[in-house]
């Protein structure tokens, strides 16, 4: 269970949000909404531990994440605006390395299945990522979700640059993750097609 207590954050000289207290329980998705520049990305990065908050605490299973450090990082998966994949490597190589570095199953068949689950056909698996389209690159980045066994996911605008088919795949994956007791924090502009009792909304304002 993830909890924030009176969290406030700023970027440079600009105060983004203050006194945000929210709880994300197992099996729920927190959808963070707000206008452009309202601090959604910073909020997610603060929750991951990449950015320091101005004030407040973040608790994972009741313990402060800044004390848990590596123990907390072992529980989370973050996919931000940047894809986190190498253009010179093929999708299979990228995903195998990501899985290896996350301690997940990185065997050939599992990786291929994950790529197919995001809708990338076999011939695409062995092309260098730089020749793929933006949407395809995004799918490669998101394919890590099919290999991950970590409970807490942070996704920054995951549906951006995805077509209808990929959006469906991702939504189904989110649904199965939530059914297994996982938690998701998503920043998004659009509605997510999930049962309303598992979705929480947070609007970021000053």
């Amino acid at each position, binding site marked *: 269970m993830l909890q924030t207590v009176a969290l406030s954050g700023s970027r440079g000289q600009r105060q983004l949000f203050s006194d945000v207290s929210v709880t994300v329980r197992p099996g729920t998705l927190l959808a963070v909404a707000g206008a452009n520049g309202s601090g959604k990305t910073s909020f997610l990065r603060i929750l991951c531990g990449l950015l320091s908050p101005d004030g407040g605490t973040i608790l994972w299973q009741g313990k402060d994440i800044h004390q848990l450090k590596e123990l907390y990082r072992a529980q989370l998966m*973050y996919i931000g605006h940047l894809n986190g994949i190498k253009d010179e490597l093929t999708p299979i190589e990228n995903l195998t390395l990501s899985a290896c570095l*996350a301690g997940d199953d990185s065997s050939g068949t599992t990786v291929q299945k994950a790529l197919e689950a995001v809708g990338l056909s076999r011939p695409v698996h062995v092309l260098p990522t730089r020749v793929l389209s933006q949407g395809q690159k995004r799918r490669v980045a998101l394919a890590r979700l099919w290999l991950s066994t970590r409970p807490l996911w942070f996704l920054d605008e995951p549906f951006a640059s995805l077509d209808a088919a990929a959006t469906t795949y991702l939504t189904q994956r989110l649904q199965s993750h939530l059914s297994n007791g996982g938690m998701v924090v998503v920043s998004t502009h659009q509605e997510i097609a999930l049962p309303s009792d598992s979705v929480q909304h947070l609007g970021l304002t000053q």
Partner: protein
Amino acid sequence: MSQPSLSEALCGVVRRDLLLAMRHRSDVAMSIFFVVIVASLFPLGVGPEAAVLRMIGPGVLWVTALLACLLSLGRLFTADYLDGVLEQTALIPQSLAVLVIGKVFAHWVISGLPVVLLSPLLGLQFGLGGDSLGVLTLSLLLGTPTLSMIGGIGAALTLGLRGSGLLVALLVLPLFVPVLIFGAGAVTSSMAGIGSEANLSLLGACFMLSLAFAPWATAVALRIALE
């Protein structure tokens, strides 16, 4: 919950960088050609007199290796920073300092090791003889990883800044100076017959010191840059 072991994470990081280098074999070639060309500039500029070349040889070769390291520092973290791989690396549940050692090691294998292997040939170009060539190679073997580790701090501090190429040089060259002095000094003292043990042990001490502190400082600097 899944967590890679420290050695798994380290190997993964090294493997990725070496794999990328294999796709860009020109990077390795560039280091080699740079060193060869710059080392050749000195005889052309100073004149071919053998005694003069033998005297300036150790210093010239060391400065050339230093410049090669400096110019390749841009490749250490920048690409990872720009495509988001660096923030993923920072989120790996292991010590970032150890992962930095992995990255620096891979970087050294690509840009530093070729210089070390080439150094006997370059030494011959400057008229260095038997023993001194061995000392030259050994000093570079100890010194170039140290330069890469110290350079990593500068690269991390200036990540994503405009004009970072020049700025890295300015920040890192003062810290390179002791390594340069001991490294070139080892070869010079060997040529003078004094024996290079003192300089080489100091060089070794620099290596140990940088191994102990530089990765940690680099990790701190990387987290600052990722904020």
